């Protein structure tokens, strides 16, 4: 271990303080006894208790999870297909146009995407609810999945697919038995990305959600406008905890896999 110079220490401290002080304050205040968010009234977990009995929040949380799970799954399927065609389809007419158009929603302001979807849904007479949010999130997340998967496909050794064909696979079998298992980590991270994007999306959801279904971000946002309730702090703390656990688990798993792979390779050379 090398000792950090004073300059690096200061930069590191400032950087982390900037990122995490707001969140730490939020977590601390979620254990506040007082009803006033800004006044410390002693330690308590009562807001967590109240949160569990808050029907509106629970319902919104359920809708959010449902929307995230469905839309990220559809987005993963379509996004993977799109990536495959873009990387492997060879040169076909309009390829450049298509690949540009797949990535366009990445840079498009969400407000515009949301508005155009809203107009479309009204135009075709689709009632706004879970279905419309799912459609909106799928559209939006698909291009992220496609970016993640195509970056993996670009480095994919093409001869693996040729070997599968050579050994008697049809094109579909080669994809199912060889390509898909190998690019699975990229597909999974694409799914996770789509899931997270859907979980915390506010803009698209507010355009496409209807009275029958609201997502958690909308619920929180509208609740905060009426004044910050300590329950929101508790809810946010739970979300931070879930995300933290997820990230730490994922990185631990990756690290363990890397260590094991390196050991395997070293053992292999020694034989």
């Amino acid at each position, binding site marked *: 271990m090398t000792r950090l110079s004073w300059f690096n220490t200061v930069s590191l401290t400032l950087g982390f303080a900037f990122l995490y002080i707001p969140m730490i304050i939020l977590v601390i205040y979620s254990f506040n006894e007082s009803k006033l968010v800004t006044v410390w009234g002693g330690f308590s977990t009562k807001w967590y208790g109240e949160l569990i009995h808050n029907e509106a929040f629970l319902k919104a949380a359920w809708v959010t999870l449902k929307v995230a799970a469905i839309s990220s799954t559809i987005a993963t399927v379509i996004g993977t297909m799109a990536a495959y065609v873009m990387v492997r389809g060879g040169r076909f007419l309009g390829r450049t146009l298509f690949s540009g158009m797949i990535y366009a929603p990445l840079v498009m302001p969400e407000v515009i995407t949301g508005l155009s979807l809203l107009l479309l849904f009204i135009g075709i007479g689709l009632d706004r609810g879970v279905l419309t949010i799912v459609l909106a999130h799928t559209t939006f997340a698909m291009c992220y999945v496609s970016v993640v998967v195509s970056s993996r496909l670009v480095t994919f*050794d093409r*001869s*693996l697919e*040729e070997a599968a*064909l050579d*050994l008697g696979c049809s094109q579909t079998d080669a994809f199912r038995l*060889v390509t898909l298992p*190998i690019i699975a980590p990229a597909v999974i991270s694409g799914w996770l990305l789509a899931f997270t994007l859907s979980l915390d999306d506010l803009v698209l959801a507010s355009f496409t959600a209807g009275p029958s279904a609201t997502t958690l971000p909308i619920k929180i946002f509208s609740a905060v406008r009426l004044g910050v309730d300590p329950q929101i702090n508790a809810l946010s703390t739970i979300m931070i905890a879930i995300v933290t656990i997820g990230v730490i688990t994922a990185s631990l798993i990756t690290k363990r896999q890397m260590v094991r792979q390196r050991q395997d390779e070293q053992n292999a*050379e020694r*034989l």
Partner: protein
Amino acid sequence: MTVPVFEPWNDPEAKPLIQFQNVTKRFGVFTAIDDLSLDIYEREFFALLGPSGCGKTTMMRMLAGFETPTEGKIYLSSQDIAPVPPNKRLVNMMFQSYALFPHLSVWENIAFGLKRENRPKHDIAERVDEMLRLTRLEKFARRKPHQISGGQRQRVALARSLAKAPKLLLLDEPLGALDKKLRQDTQFELMDIQEKTGTTFVIVTHDQEEAMTVASRVAVMDNGKLVQVATPDRIYENPNSLYVADFIGDVNIIDGTASPSGQDQYSLAWKDGLAPLNVSSTQSFSEGQSCHLAIRPEKVTISAEEPTGADNAVPGRVLDIAYLGNISTYHVELPSGAVIKAQTANTRRIARRAFTWEDPVWLSWTATAGVLLAD
């Protein structure tokens, strides 16, 4: 007792397993294969040899079914294979990168092709075990490809491509990723396996030593054309062109003009102003035709005294010595400044070496030692 010689290419009755008939392959404006015809026979170990970009890999990929010829036809057992997709051909390929499936164990990699044929489980297991024995991989069946060494991966790739008992096995630079020692051992293993299984092998390589070692016949390619197709010894001893002579092994090229001096005998006047050289050649040359004498360094004798009775002898001075352990190559400078390489086996310890730098020496060779080639 006479052992029958394996040379179906000299038998007019023999039916070739593979026939290339005037095959041309173009990629856009680039012609990779140019009007090429070639017959390859059953049980042959055939090598396609050439520098990178000469079209040898394209030939192999057309046989595997990953490319289709632009013009001409390719027959496998007298059947046109152009419309047959890769997964329906009785041809398997061993890839340069091995292309082992990283998510499957060695056992499952070898079983992969067999499972596609919907064979009974029992049959598959038996065949995989047979392949593991053949390639001495029994101990590694449960390992994943990244858990074995490079040499073992190469053997897994071979076992996988042989498992379906193809009529024809294609090997794309199969030993390119191995170090020299392992490569030499593996060459003999490959020949052994080829003999045991009786499969026809077509190997693509840019390594002439490898091609010479393993192959029954070698095709030397350049710019999408076959330059010479012959047995390794004929390719080496009787190259049909300057390109082949230069590509295979080490060679001295002497430019000059020929004039006939008897039955199959020529005297070669060369620009270095020394006495004309005596050369015998079965190929005929006209008076004054410019040509090249290709002569291998090991066929040039180096001596301290002027040799008596040699067909050709020239004096020179030792310029450089390349000591390779078993042999030494002497670079000898002639009075005119031209350099000729002579090779001798180091049968004595190096301290007793007869010549050293700057020594005046004589080079000599017989009239039949070299090959006279036209432009």
